Structures are given as structure tokens and as C-alpha cells.
């Protein structure tokens, strides 16, 4: 075995045994460094005959290539092993909970109000408003309530001291006074919804002294009961996310509509549930707002937002809407939505 063969064997054996990058570098220096064995052999070439130099030189260069490639290969393996080892040492417990980010919630009633506005908005309704503290005129008289109507009596209505002009003041018992305010200041055609707070003096499992309603009003020359049905069917089906939801319109009584109707929905295949009242605006109401009932007509509706929220989201106790219990709000609330 000649010197070269010996060198090659030692080097390759060394490569096999080496386990660190430093050991690999040492091996390289021993063979290929400035004073490395192979380098020295190459330096010796100068003293050889040209003939020997040619053949031996070619052999030495070939050996250098072999050693260099083997070294590179081994280096890659060792580097890969090193990286693996590092990565193993860097292992984290990914099951640990992340840093909590404080999240807030929107009250379910607000969420329901948003949805209602959105759905009616698609039908061309715009939002109108009125004050919580109303004159008796807007809350009752203009809405064609007879003077002795039970809703006008103390057990239902919250009263405030009369205004400076002597008008009795009440907390509005429904959102319907917004109809009057709108009709008195706007000429038809009118198409509004009015969501808001309403008040009645009643507190038990199914009544709270404050609750929310959404009112609707359409006044033009041609809108009839068929449109009223179509409008409310579309709303209920979109709101309850059930395109085949069954609705039942049956005759009802409200002083401010004629004909009047109550609307039931067929709920979970088991029973009819009353969800809203509606009808064609009573001619007396139009007259009270200086709108000629022989020229204009339209429909109005009103529904309780708590009621539809309870049905849609399976909320059982009405009173908890207003208890500000964080446990309840976190459970029934909604993440703030991204808006346009």
C-alpha cells in the first residue's frame, strides 16, 4: 500500500469516526491544511521528474477531490445532526395557553337590533328616532287611543310631572310615537323603522319595566296588506334564518291600525308563538298627522326585541338582559363585528 492509499484510508476512517464539526475541521487541517499530509505530498512533487510529476500530480489531484467531496458530505451530515439536536433542545410546550387578549362583547339586544336594522335596511327602511320621555299626545292621543283606554292608566304607564306647557309627560310605552313624529315632519312616501327603549310599569318573569321595541311605518299611495305580509314574512325568515318559516296572520286589535293583525310564527314544529302586532295605519292616525287618508295609506308594525332575541338565541330569563352579569354577558354576548 502506498502512501496515498494509506492517507486516503486514514482520512476516510477518521471521517467515519468524527462526530463534531471541530473534529472534522481538525481532520481537514491534518490532510488538506497548509501542512497537511496531502499538501506536503503535493509540495514534494517539485522534486520529482517531469514524468513522475505528471502521473503523480494527476493522482494527487484526484485524491484531493475525493477527500474534499467526502469531507463536504460528512460536514453536511454533521451540520444536519447539529441542527436537529438544537431543535430538539429548543422544544416548547405548545399546549400552554397563549397570552390572553382581553375580549369584549356586544349585548345580545344590540346584536339583534343591528340585524333587524340590516334586514329592514335592505328593504329600503331608514332609522327614525324619538325621545324616551314623550308627551301624552304622541304616545296616546295622536295614535287614536280612546281617552279611557286601559294602557293609558297608571298601572301601565310611567308618568312624569307635566311639561311647562301643561302636557302630561310619560315614558313612552311603545315606539309608536315615532310614527307620529315622523308623519308630522315628513311628507309621504315614508318608510322608517324606529328601534328603541320603551317602558311599562310591570315587573315579573315575563315583564321588565324597560324593554325594547322596533317600530315600522310605511306610508304611500299603494301599499296594502299584501305588502305588509310580504315584508314581515321576509323579515322573519331572514332573521330566524329559516327560509320556509311559517307565519300566521290573524285579526287583532290596536287603536292605531285598521285592519289590525297579530303575527304568529310556527316554532320548532310544535306551536304558534305570537311575535308581533301590525296593521294598516288607522285613518284617524293619518288625519291626526295632517295626511289625507283618502290619498295615502300604509302599514305599521311593532315587535319586542327581547322576545325575538330570546327565541333566536334560546335565552330563557328576560330579567337577565338587564342584570349586567358578566357570566351571562360572556355567554350570550357577541364579538364586535367588523363593519364597512
Amino acid at each position, binding site marked *: 500500500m502506498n502512501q496515498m492509499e494509506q492517507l486516503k484510508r486514514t482520512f476516510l476512517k477518521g471521517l467515519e469516526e468524527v462526530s463534531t464539526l471541530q473534529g472534522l475541521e481538525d481532520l481537514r487541517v491534518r490532510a488538506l491544511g497548509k501542512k497537511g499530509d496531502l499538501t506536503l505530498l503535493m509540495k514534494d512533487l517539485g522534486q520529482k521528474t517531469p514524468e513522475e510529476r505528471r502521473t503523480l500530480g494527476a493522482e494527487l489531484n484526484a485524491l484531493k477531490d475525493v477527500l474534499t467531496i467526502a469531507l463536504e458530505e460528512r460536514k453536511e451530515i454533521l451540520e444536519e445532526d447539529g441542527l436537529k439536536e438544537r431543535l430538539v433542545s429548543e422544544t416548547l410546550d405548545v399546549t400552554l*395557553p397563549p*397570552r*390572553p387578549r*382581553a*375580549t*369584549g*362583547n356586544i*349585548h345580545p339586544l*344590540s346584536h339583534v337590533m*343591528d340585524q333587524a336594522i340590516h334586514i329592514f*335596511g*335592505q*328593504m*329600503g*327602511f*331608514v*332609522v327614525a*328616532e324619538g*325621545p*324616551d*320621555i314623550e308627551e301624552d299626545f304622541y304616545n296616546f292621543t295622536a295614535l287614536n287611543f280612546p281617552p*279611557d283606554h286601559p294602557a293609558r*292608566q297608571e298601572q301601565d304607564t310611567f*308618568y*312624569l*310631572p307635566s*311639561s311647562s306647557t301643561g302636557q302630561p309627560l310619560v*315614558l313612552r310605552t311603545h315606539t309608536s310615537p315615532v310614527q307620529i313624529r315622523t308623519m308630522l315632519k315628513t311628507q309621504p312616501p315614508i318608510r322608517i*323603522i324606529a328601534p328603541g*327603549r320603551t317602558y311599562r310599569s310591570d*315587573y315579573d318573569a315575563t315583564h321588565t*319595566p324597560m324593554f325594547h321595541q322596533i317600530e315600522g311605518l310605511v306610508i304611500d299611495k*299603494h301599499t*296594502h*296588506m*299584501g*305588502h305588509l*305580509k*310580504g315584508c314581515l314574512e*321576509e323579515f322573519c325568515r331572514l332573521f330566524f334564518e329559516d327560509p320556509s318559516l311559517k307565519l300566521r*296572520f*290573524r*285579526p287583532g*286589535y290596536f287603536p292605531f291600525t*285598521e*285592519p289590525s*293583525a297579530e303575527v304568529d310564527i310556527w316554532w320548532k314544529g310544535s306551536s304558534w308563538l305570537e311575535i308581533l302586532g301590525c296593521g*294598516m295605519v*288607522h285613518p284617524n292616525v293619518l288625519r291626526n298627522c295632517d295626511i289625507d287618508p283618502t290619498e295615502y295609506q300604509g302599514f305599521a308594525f311593532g315587535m319586542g326585541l327581547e322576545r325575538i332575541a330570546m327565541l333566536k338565541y334560546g335565552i330563557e330569563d328576560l330579567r337577565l*338582559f*338587564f342584570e*349586567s*352579569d*358578566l*357570566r351571562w*354577558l360572556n355567554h350570550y*354576548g357577541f*364579538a*364586535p363585528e367588523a*363593519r364597512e
Partner: protein
Amino acid sequence: MRFTLSWLKEHLDTKASLEEISEKLTSLGLVVDKIKNPGEALAPFTVCEIIEAEKHPNADRLQVCKVQTGNEIIQVVCGAKNARKGLKAVLARPGHIIPSTQQVLKVGKVRDVESFGMLCSNEELLLEETSEGIIEVDPKAPIGKSYAEWLELNDPLIEIEVTPNRGDCLSVHGVARDLAATGIGTLKPLKTAKVSSTFPCPLSLKIDLEACPYFTGRVIRGLKNGPSPEWLQKKLRSIGLRPISALVDITNFFTYDGGRPLHVFDADKIKGNLSVRLSKTGEIFKALDEKTYTLSDEMTVIADDSGVISLAGIMGGESTGCDETTQTVFLESAFFDPIHTSITGRAVNIISDSRHRFERGVDPLSTLPGLEAATQMILDICGGEASQILAEGQPPYEEVEIPFFTIRLETLGGLAVDPMEAEKILNSLGFKLIEDENGYSIIPPSWRFDITQEADLVEEILRVKGYDKIPSVPYGERPEQKPLAPAQERRFAIRDRLASQGMTEVITWSFMSKEEAKLFGGIDKHLVLINPLSQDLNGMRPSLLPNLLKATLQNQNRAAETIALFEVGPQYANPTPEGQSLMATGLRCGLFNQNTWCEKKRPVDIYDVKADVLALFELVGLSPQIEANGPSWYHPGRSGTFKFGPQIVGYFGELHPRVLKAFDVKGPTLAFEIFIDRLPLSKKKTTAKPKLELSPYQVVDRDFAFVVNQNVSADTLIKAVVKAEPSLKMSLSIFDVFAMGDGKKSIALRIRIHPKDHTLTEDEIQMISQKIISSVEKNVGGVLRQ
């Protein structure tokens, strides 16, 4: 309103099923509340006959009976003494549920003898509260027949809701009339009578027509009051009324049957003559409910020489009440005005069937026929003879013609109806029709107080046809505008932004206690409720904070440690619409975050709520001035007021310790109140953003620490820095603040300089730094910390 199916059929000739009737009622607007068949629970029990009864071999008190069921003979062990051969009894078979125990009957062995059924007692079938022995069925009852059927218990009770405008349907006859109009049956006429009087009425009557427009009555003498006949008792019981005596039961019958309330006075107890008048304040009246009422003025009463003996249309008096000794009565049939009756009824708070009907309107033309029919029934049941009729006033009914064009059914009601059909429906509801070349004139019947115009007639025809016949027309032309105006839209966006800040939205009462409001400026006397539900909720809130503080306390009591609440809602400064302000009010209390493996907990501080408010202002594109100090409910040294010019738009800060103590809230509490509708609306016409120049040149970061007097605010220091080189864009962050003693503090800033048109040289950077240092020195007296 309650009635049984058999009672309804006395007024309506129909072959319709109960289900059809029920559907029609709801569709007519007489919504069915419930239907109950009292015979249902008894349906399985049948009539049987004991054909053999022998002593039980192992028990003295038991008998072993052979029972004929109608198709077989079975063995039944029975403990009742009255079980005997030949007796017809009621049999329960294995599998049936015994009403009194709700247990399923099984085949049993009683002392080694098998029993294949049970002979029932009235108690076991819940037909009587207690009973001795088994039921002894009438020998005429056929074996095998359902016992409930034999007793005619299979008569469903129908309960409907009647809207306040339909007083005419508080009678079986009225309900039948509505049903007949739908075509499912024929209305039978009300029974009438013409009683021949045998003597003049011995009482005289004075009537104040303001108190009562029409009053009739007569004396019936020589009668005998006692229990009413079985058919009448059964009828009243079937609708849940307790039979009292023949005279009272007869008046109750007419109240429900034809909607004609009546009253019977014991004529022997009437002192002197009768008058119908308005009461005087302070008059005392003892009613049949045994309570004494002190009357105010303007109540319609019936009086004799002793005083008030009846509250008209509401309840009779104890002094003239009928009992089993009554021999002479005065029978009253009148028209009492709905408004008067309603006001009086509410004032005395008496609820009665009579008040319920008079308040909603009783047919004025039924006054005299009702008197006659009731007289006839009294004579038939109690005997006696009737006097001539006493009548004063006139029935208040005038025929009014309402013009009606059937085309309105389509243009208002959305349903085209053949005029012939419309005519038929109106006729069957009792309307009179006059046809002329323009259309119809319609005269409503005397029992309908709610029909005054065309729209009412449209409803009548539509409800008889059924609202389900109206085709729905898709509604909604494409919107021309957004549903929310910018000022409205902004409120919803603010709510979302605050929730994104980690706050939870609450909705609390608009009212609160006057007492608790004192710390928040108090409640104006015009905003105190006249009739609050409780003293806790007696005024309109001047601020949302008290409710949020109460919510905080409640949540603290439930061990909540991080509390961040907000409400978007109204507060009230005065009762005018302008006095109502829409607020976004929020509050943080307790920990900002909890201890976790990677973060330490820390309490909330004023900068957390400042961040909330700034997020809100950023959303609406505004930056208001901040002035030190908020209103009295804030910590004076840790609060601020937001303003646009002279207009206050909000407050923020730490709440005053006195407030926290009053509300029992633990730990510092930070709050903000923003008057949403006072924020100026952005005038920008476009949503486009200003053009952005992206500089390719390297930014430069430099840190500075300045020593300034303690009273120099961070805000003024930043202004001094920015002023130093206005031509360059700088972004600043304060990364350290600490007190140094001697009234000095150090504020450390990192300043990033964004070059515009070339990379800054070291010399240029030096120059800018110098300018910053001199500007700080000149403007706020600060020096660079060495």
C-alpha cells in the same frame, strides 16, 4: 271568554268538527287559548254489571266478583261494601291510568285471588272529592258504554281571547254569529219571550240620564228561590262558574249566553224608591263581595232611600242581595256607559263579568228583550208573577251610514273579494246594506261599537275570509339610502370599537334612585317619576355611571376580578327631547389582566381608559382638547375633560373615593363619559385617504432623557420636541418616566426621524439633536440628563 261546544251548538247549527271550529275562531280574531275536554281522562272507563259477588276465601272484607264487560266476563276483586250482584258499576282495566293516583292499573293477585280490573269510586275518577264505595251507575246505562259519554262529560270547553273592541263576542251567541259568517254553520235566533204582566210595578224610578241613558226593570213577586235546575247548574259548572241560587244563576246564564248582564235585587229589602244617579264623594257602599267601598263622585249608582244599593254594571250591594228566603225581586236590565263603568271599575278595583261586558259595550237594543227573556226564565224556574215594565231613557243607538267601496278590499286589504260575497258576509254579521249607483252605504248593528269607517268594514270582510287568503306581495324596492344616517351609524361603530378594546356592553335601566343620583349632580324634579315601580327606580338617570357601579359591585360579589363595562344609552338633564343625551359611558375596575405563566397581573389605571377613549376618538376622526379635572364625581387630580372649543364632549378619570365608598365598590375605578351626539361629524365628503410618500432613505433613531420640573406635562414636552424641526417628520415614544426628587422628574423619549429627500449625515443628525435640546430648554426649561 269560555263556553262549551254543546252550548255553542245551541246557537250555531253546524256539522263542523271541533278542529274546524277552533281554526275558524282563531282566524276570525277570536284566538283560541285552550280547549279542554273534561271527559278525556275518563275515556277508557266503561259501564259494567256485577253478575256474581262472593266472599273472598282469604279475606273477610273483600269480595270476588264476576263482571260482565259487554263482550266477556272477568274476575275482579273488590273491597267496597256496596259491590253486589246486579249492580252496574264503572270498570277500569289493566293498562288504564287511575286519575286520582296517576298509576297504571295492573293485573293483580289479592290474597291469592287474581283480579283483572278494578271497580271505581267517584273519588278515584276525581268526580267527587270524597266518596264511599264504588259508583252505582243508573241501571238504564248500557253495559260497555263509556262512562264519560254516559255522563255527557265529553263536552269540550273552549277558551278564547276577546280583544277589547269585541264586547259582542263576550257571549256565546256573538261567537256563534261570527262563526256563522264564515259559512260553517247557521246562526239560530236568540230565544225571545213576551211576558204578560199581572200588576203595575210597585216601585218608582228616577233616572239621571247623564249617569245612565237607558234603564228598565220590573218586579216579580210570589216566587221561590232555591237551587237552580240541574241543566242550569251543569251549564254554569261547565264553564267554571259556581251555581249559587236559581235567581243568581239565571242572571249569570244571560250574561254568558247572549251577553246581557242583569241584576236581581231582593225587592223586599229596597227602602222606598229607586234612583239611578251619580254618586257623591264619601258615600259608603257595601258590595256583594262583602267589602265596603267609599265612593268618589261621578260613579253611576243605583240607590234607594237608604243610599247606594248597587254600583251600576259592576256589582250589586249586600243590603238588597237575594237569598233562599227571597220572594219578590226587582230585575234590572240597563245600558251603562262604557267609559263611566270603566272609570268606576278601576277606581273601586272590582273585577266582575258584568263590568267586563259593560266596559266593552253591551248591545243597547238587547235591554228590553233581555229583561223579557230573563223574566220568563225566572217565572219558569221560580214561579211567581211579573209586574209591568219600568223603563226610563232611550237605548243609545243611531243608525249611521258608512260609505263603502268594495274595491278597497283589494286596494287596502290586498284581497279581491266578489261584491256579492262581501255583501253576504256583512249581512250575516248583522250589518244593513243600502246599495246605490256609487257603491254601498253600510249600517253597523247595535252591538258593534267599533265600526265607524271604511277600514273597519275592510277588516270585517277580511277576517271572515281569513287573513291567510291575502296573497303576500314581495316587499322592498331596492334601497335608495343607507338605513342609518352618519350620526346614527357612528353610535353603532363606537359600540363595536369599545367592545374591541376588551370592554363588555351592558344595558341598564334608564331610571335609578333619586338618592343615589345625588353624587352625580342629582335628578331634576321634573325627572322624578310620579308612579315609580319602587324607590330604587324613581327618577331618570343623570349619568350612566351609577348603574355601571352597581353592576360592578354585583360582579365583584360574584368574584369577578377584571371588570370592564360600557353602555351606549341615554341620560337625562331635563324632560325635553333636547334634555336626553346619548352617552358612551364605560368603566374599568380591578385587574387589567390576570397572572399567567407569561405575564404578571396588573391593576387597571387611568391610561387604560384613556386608551379606550382615544380609540373612540380615533374611530370618529377627532382629537379634542383635554383639560385637567372632571366633574365632582371624579378624583380631582386624576381626571380630565374633553372639549371642542367651549363645548364639553366628555370626561375621563379615576372615580372619586367618596363615590366608590357610597357604592361599596372595591379598588380604584376608572371611567369615561362621552356625549356621542355632541361630537362634530366629520365634514369630509370622501373616504379617500391623503397621498402617502414612502421615503427610500434610512430612518434615524435617537434617545433623549430630559430633566424637567415635576409640573411639566408630557404633552408640553412633546410639543417642544416636535417644534424643534418642523420640516422633518418625527415619531415619538416615551419609554421612561421617573421622579428624581427636588421637584424634578426625568422623561425619556425615543425619537425616530424620517428623512425626506436624502440620507441624513452624522453632522445633520447632530444639528437636529441640538435643536431639540435647545427647544426643550427654551419651551419647558428641561435639560438633557447626563
